[in-house]
């Protein structure tokens, strides 16, 4: 295992407009483990921010705290100036969330699922109907809109979940692995969708293991390791900050502790 080097973070100076996402000194304890440790970052309005980290680094925990699905042990999270701890309906309306493994209602059809979510967000019947049909068309699900969720493939379910988080037209999107389970064509469509939303000034907080997606889409990225933010900035800047990395993958590995060389077939020896 390579020796870990401490880096000094180079934080971009943000404009004076209030950030869409403002996280300060965020902490989360789970009994003996500190899953998120003093995390601070800001995301500008209309920015696509990539959030990277190894498995178990605290990415999903951070996003759940941003959604209000987990309570922070310390620090603050604000979306559009609203504090998550106030638990206001306006806070929930301000963002759309796509979890890593979205689990939907199996006995509902896609249309029923989206109709249910639309009602939860208080959309009028006309708005619901219009948006549902448009989203099904965008994701090429018009013919499958009346199929039950239980009959859908993983990719189709992912599309329904993505439609769900877009339905109420939020200004902020929190996407945890949005291309997971999608074929290359669908993944391309999602990337184009993210780019289009970015052009319409939607703020996107994106977590993904696919570095190519991050590199292609994100204005800035943050790398989290063992609950701490170890790098923050534009992709090129982060590569420059690293010691020996020539690309984002090497920089990522360097920031997150290097590569452990394993004897892959050791388990077969008695």
């Amino acid at each position: 295992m390579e020796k870990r080097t401490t880096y000094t973070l180079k934080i971009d100076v943000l404009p004076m407009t209030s950030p869409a996402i403002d996280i300060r000194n965020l902490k989360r304890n789970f009994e003996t483990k500190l899953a998120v440790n003093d995390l601070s970052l800001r995301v500008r309005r209309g920015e696509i921010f990539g959030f990277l980290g190894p498995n178990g680094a605290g990415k999903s925990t951070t996003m759940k705290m941003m959604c209000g699905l987990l309570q922070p042990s310390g620090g603050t999270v604000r979306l559009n100036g609203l504090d998550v701890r106030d638990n206001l309906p306006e806070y929930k309306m301000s963002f759309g969330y796509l979890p890593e493994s979205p689990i939907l209602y199996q006995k509902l059809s896609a249309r029923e699922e989206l109709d249910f979510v639309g009602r939860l967000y208080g959309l009028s019947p006309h708005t619901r109907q219009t948006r549902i049909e448009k989203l099904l068309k965008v994701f090429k699900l018009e013919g499958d809109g009346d199929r039950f969720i239980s009959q859908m493939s993983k990719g189709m379910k992912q599309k329904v979940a993505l439609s769900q988080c877009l339905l109420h037209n939020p200004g902020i999107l929190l996407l945890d692995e949005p291309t997971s389970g999608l074929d290359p064509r669908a993944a391309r469509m999602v990337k184009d969708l993210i780019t289009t939303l970015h052009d319409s000034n939607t703020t996107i907080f994106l977590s993904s293991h696919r570095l190519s997606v991050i590199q292609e889409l994100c204005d800035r990225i943050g790398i989290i390791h063992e609950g701490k933010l170890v790098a923050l900035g534009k992709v090129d800047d982060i590569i420059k900050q690293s010691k020996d990395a020539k690309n984002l993958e090497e920089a990522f590995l360097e920031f997150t502790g290097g590569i452990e060389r394993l004897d892959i077939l050791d388990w077969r020896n008695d």
Partner: protein
Amino acid sequence: MSIFFLGLMAMSIVPMIWKMSFDMGGSESNLADLRMVFLYIFIILLFFSTSFFSAQVILQQDIPLLLISPTPNRQIVWARMASVSVRMLILAMVPIMVFLVGFSRGYGSNQPLFLGLVAFLINFIMASALGFFMSLLVVRAWRVGGSRIVMRTVSIVVTMAIMFSLRLFIWMASAHPGFGDMMPLSWGADLMLGRPLGSAFIAMAAVLILLGILLMNRYAVRFWTEGGDVTQGVAPRPSYREGVAVSPGHHIISRTDAIVRKEFTNLKREPEVLIRLIFLVGVLAVIPYIMGEEDIPGVLLTPFFLIMIAWTGTTILVGNTLGSDGRQLWMIKNAPLSAEEYFRGKVRYATAILTPMILAFMTISYFTDPMDRSQSLGLLILGLLIILGAPNIGVSVGTMFPDYDRATRNRPGFLAFGVISFLLLLCYLPAASMVMLGDEILADLGAPSTLRASGFAMTAILLTIVVVAMRNRALSSYRKIEFVGDLAEAE
């Protein structure tokens, strides 16, 4: 839980069966009556075996998993059939043994007890074998284009008809003595009483059982393992009201309405829940009527049956409130839906289902049970208290004690079931006792006429305290839910 309730129902008709069998054993025309009883039992067993075996194929979701195991398909099919048969036998043994013992006592000899047991077992095996084959026809018809809801509804109607038809059968036996002689399936009675036709019954049974086994062996595996489209097709599109103006309160109504609609949509796709309730209401409504026919006051049981309906309805509709949303709870917690709106939606859903059940039971009881006016009024008050309180208690407990891991999402966990049971009995048993106190009973006891009113008032106060306290606790629990993994965990 279903075996518990079926057992409870069986126990509640034990006195009636005992009295009937004792009188039959001692009467001179006992052979004719007994033949009708055997015929009746055969029809019931045939019906239930057909239903249970059909349900194995249509409703059980684990058959495809079993069939891909290394165990031969034939053994799986036979094992599943045997398990269903044994369960049926256990359920049937209680009323049958009561009948046989009562009859023997009335007859004055133990011979009918032992021979009757043999005759009954032969009857059972015959009905099982034929019932299984008939179930294959039912499954075939269902796969061609049947509906689970229609099938279940028909089964309820037939069950109710069978339960009411015993009196009709006995009347036919007394009005037409030769009727039983013409029906070989009823000759089990002759075996029980040691009559000559008993031998013919054994011979006929051997032929029918052999026929059933041959048919099962030939067709069972094929029918069970044949692919069938067991999906439910496509869903109807949700309808929208065009041009609905967005009023200031619209968003609030819409969010609670979302929960109610979602629950009803799921209920539509799981009709067994609703059908089980309807079945329970029907059966519990019939028992006091049958007791009334035997001059046993049905009002002794009616208010307690009302609580039983509330108990069953509450536990299976909302007893696992949070667990029923389970892994989808993230969607609800993520939405701008307050804890109060969620709670309100669930309560409205449970109330919408439970209210017609309670009203139907009260209406049937009013016309079939001989009750005085004060008892009828008391039953009405109890029903209203149940409608107002039981759904709130169910949703509160189901929120505080969720079970996310249950395979059947509607069933509450052990703890929730216990707490719901305790609270419903605590709140409603006193009122149920008040219902039984008619004007005559009060006068006999020398009790003041205000006793009933005081009892109901105390119940109402207790219920209010319990509902408010549990609701507040439940809302607090809901707000504390966190999503550590995929499932929610309350602190």
